[in-house]
């Protein structure tokens, strides 16, 4: 099942903040458009923002360890800034990050990359540094969402849709499903969202409806 075979419907919203409840927002904007065979996908950074999981650099007190360790992250990474590194340490623990960095370094020496993010905890790869999200949150570091499975289940329960997912998708053809309702296959949904139907930040479409996904599943099973 691919994106080409399904209709993806991005839904524009106003800018969401920590004053919003993501389930209420989805109900308000898309309730009329959602059928029992549809899957609702929502962008992870927006879920995190509605959960209040963001912080300004000015509110962070970086440790000496964070100041040193950020120097060993490639400049493109969110943890390359001292505030990104401290945010990761706050989320996953200083020693876990230090240990993961050390093992990751050793891994690179023997030609095995990616160990750091495997060992450093789930939040580490989800942290967006400043500039990572749209205004007014471009001046904040945004954590990954809390309890993405719970969020997905709450969306499904409220809207009566086939399923729901919380997804992390970008323009670099990277997509991951962080939370999904029972019965959905996260990898399959991630593949459907691979072309980033959420668009860029200025398009303000944090919700994408995968229309008639349930019917497509039934068809595939029947075949």
């Amino acid at each position, binding site marked *: 099942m691919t994106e080409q075979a399904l209709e993806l419907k991005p839904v524009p919203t106003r800018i969401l903040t920590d004053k919003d409840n993501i389930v209420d927002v989805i109900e308000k904007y898309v309730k009329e458009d959602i059928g029992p065979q549809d899957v609702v996908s929502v962008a992870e950074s927006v879920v995190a923002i509605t959960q209040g999981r963001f912080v300004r*650099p000015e509110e962070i007190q970086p440790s000496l360890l964070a100041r*040193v360790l950020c*120097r060993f992250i490639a400049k493109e990474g969110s943890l390359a*800034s*001292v505030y990104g590194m401290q945010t990761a340490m706050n989320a996953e623990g200083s020693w876990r990050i230090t240990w993961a960095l050390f093992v990751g370094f050793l891994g690179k020496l023997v030609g095995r990359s990616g160990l750091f993010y495997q060992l450093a905890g789930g939040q580490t790869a989800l942290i967006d540094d*400043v*500039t990572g999200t749209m*205004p*007014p949150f471009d001046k904040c570091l945004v954590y990954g969402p809390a309890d993405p499975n719970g969020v997905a289940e709450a969306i499904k329960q409220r809207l009566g849709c086939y399923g729901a997912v919380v997804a992390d998708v970008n323009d670099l053809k990277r997509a991951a499903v962080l939370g999904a309702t029972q019965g959905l296959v996260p990898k399959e949904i991630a593949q459907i969202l691979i072309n980033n139907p959420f668009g860029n930040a200025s398009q303000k479409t944090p919700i994408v409806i995968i229309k008639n996904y349930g019917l497509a599943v039934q068809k595939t099973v029947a075949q």
Partner: protein
Amino acid sequence: MELLIVLLIVVLGAVVGVWLYIAKQGDANFKFIVDQRTDFTLTGITKETATFSATVPFINNGSQDGTLMDVFPRHFLPCEQFDAVDTDTRLTFDRANRSDGYWEAYIVPVTTGGSIILTVKFTAKSGDIKVALKDMVDMPIDIVYQVVARSLWYIAKERLVMTADEIHKALAASEEAAAR
């Protein structure tokens, strides 16, 4: 005892090594090149208001990428010095071309830069901007910017002066153009 000394030397060596690595790595370094700014030109005029704008280049001439998290102008025209106009200054990254005065945090790769468009709007308190600006004085404007990079965030500023002379020249140029 010898083992302890060896251990101490190893730890000290590691600390020095990390320190040298960080020192060599360096950080972003931003500069708003105010002496390469363009002259202010008149971009809009009404009976009560006159709007001028100039372009100011900036560069990250450090050794790391850095983020301009915020950039804003601060003009200095106290009423004790000149009381004929109300002044509003704002700026935008030229590629963003926003009109809301909001600076969207922007990563500037090492050795690259860009330009800001600085806009100054004068509103005559008397209702006639040409009369109000007749005795205008030189007005300093600070470009204030907040940087986040490998080190702790900081705020810095560069000063330029919008001269009365260039205001008058810009007004005169627009009048000449209108006359043609």
